[in-house]
């Protein structure tokens, strides 16, 4: 499909250029800390991550207040929900650094943060798919999302519910965290979650191409980078675990910790940029 005759490249923004330079410097600093200071120094970087996500959630809610139309309010709420979910996940990871030998309540908290991720992501994907449809000149229903969304809702709810049933059952049976729970929870929780993300990526990529709305495209671009950050970190961690046998022994290695810290900061930056690109807004009148 040819691009719009009026399509323009976004004007480079100096403020964001400085942010990007700072981000790269920060990433290098984290990597250097991992090499020089190991886990202890990395921990210092890890502590602020829940607060960074909390700020992104706040920013999205702040922009949401400017919208009148429910659909756009839902889109902003979706970003806020994703940021809130990551705040909880980073916070729980901070409070409960390892699931090994966890109590019932701790395992439940782990299960909640691992399995409830589909809900905020679905909220955002659903609202953004409908925004993309609205801004498409032909109002096309990309990949029949108006019907497909019900299947995705069922998948998200069933996977989260199953995971929440499995987690306490396993803990009740074994008295603590066991590797089989980890495997089962990963399959039950992460496979449908990944399916939701991939369906969302496909629908929103198509929606962005069809809509030709530069604001929407920018918003989706940053969310796509956010998703890829997760996928790449996950892939690198899996490869590392396979290559270094001692890494799968339940110990949290410096490499895994550094990957997590990096992931959180990069994800927070992408979420921040996507929240800012929900709608054009100005600080000058």
């Amino acid at each position, binding site marked *: 499909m040819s691009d*719009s*005759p*009026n*399509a*323009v490249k976004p004007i480079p923004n100096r403020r964001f250029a400085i942010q990007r330079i700072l981000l790269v410097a920060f990433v290098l600093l984290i990597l250097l800390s991992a090499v020089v200071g190991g886990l202890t120094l990395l921990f210092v970087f890890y502590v602020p991550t829940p607060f960074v996500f909390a700020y992104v959630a706040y920013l999205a809610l*702040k*922009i949401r*207040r*400017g*919208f*009148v*139309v*429910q*659909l*756009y*309010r839902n*889109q902003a709420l979706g970003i806020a929900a994703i940021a809130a979910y990551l705040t909880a996940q980073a916070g729980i990871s901070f409070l409960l650094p390892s699931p090994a030998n966890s109590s019932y309540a701790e395992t439940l908290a782990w299960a909640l943060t691992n399995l409830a991720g589909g809900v905020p992501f679905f909220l955002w994907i659903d609202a953004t798919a409908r*925004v993309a449809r*609205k*801004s498409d*000149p*032909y*109002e096309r229903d990309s990949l029949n999302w108006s019907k497909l969304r019900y299947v995705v809702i069922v998948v998200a709810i069933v996977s989260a519910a199953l995971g929440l049933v499995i987690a306490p059952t396993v803990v009740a049976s074994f008295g603590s965290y066991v590797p089989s729970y980890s495997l089962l929870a990963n399959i039950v929780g992460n496979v449908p979650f990944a399916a939701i993300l991939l369906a969302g990526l496909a629908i929103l990529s198509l929606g962005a191409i069809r809509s*030709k*709305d*530069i*604001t*929407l495209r920018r918003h989706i671009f940053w969310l796509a980078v956010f998703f890829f950050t997760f996928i790449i970190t996950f892939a690198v961690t899996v490869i590392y675990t396979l290559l270094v046998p001692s890494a799968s022994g339940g110990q949290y290695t410096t490499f895994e910790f550094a990957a997590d810290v990096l992931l959180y900061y990069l994800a927070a930056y992408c979420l921040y940029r996507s929240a800012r690109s929900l*709608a*054009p*807004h*100005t*600080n000058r*009148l």
Partner: protein
Amino acid sequence: MRLASTGVDELDRLLGAGYPDRAVVLVSGPAGIGKEALRYWFISAGLAAGDFCLYVTKSTPAEVLQDFRGFGVDTSKVPTWYSREGGERKFDPNDLAAMSFNIKETLRSNEGRRIRIVTDVLSSLLVLNPTETVYRFLSQLFADVKQYDAVMLATLEEGMHDPKVVSTIGELFDGVVEFKLFEEGLNVTPLLRVAKMRGLPPELGYYNFALAKGRMEIRTYVR
């Protein structure tokens, strides 16, 4: 000068008593800020006053009426639809000649009546056609509209196009109402401004607004 009520009492007061007669008015702003409310209330006021009302939309009449109800606008009377499907005439964003012909036909057949035309298709036209083509098309269309006792209101999505395109197209209109999301410290506030309106001096001040079911509140914005 005869004025056409906007359907919003407080906006009417700002403009004297409404939009000027034989005028084309642009409402621009970010998506989701509530520009469509001005379309719905303008049509609703026209239907209540017994004017002939034409709604040109890329959506279907059912979808637009659902939105009307969402904003608390009365749907007991409906306008004539020129829409993607389900309307009296079929709208195709790629066929500017047919659109021009159909609107002119409608104007001609309702000559002698007060006419209100409302449209949400401007952004679609701009993404599917070169700016020059749309500019020429609108210039001709607006000249035709002004030959009749008609007022036309169009909305444009601000973040969807290059600001230069929005500015160029804005020059064609007799009146421009701007909506903005203003980031002020810890808040993002929706504001509106009457950037220009035929018969009125340029307005520099911004107004706070809030939409509630069936009404719009406008207050002078004070930092």
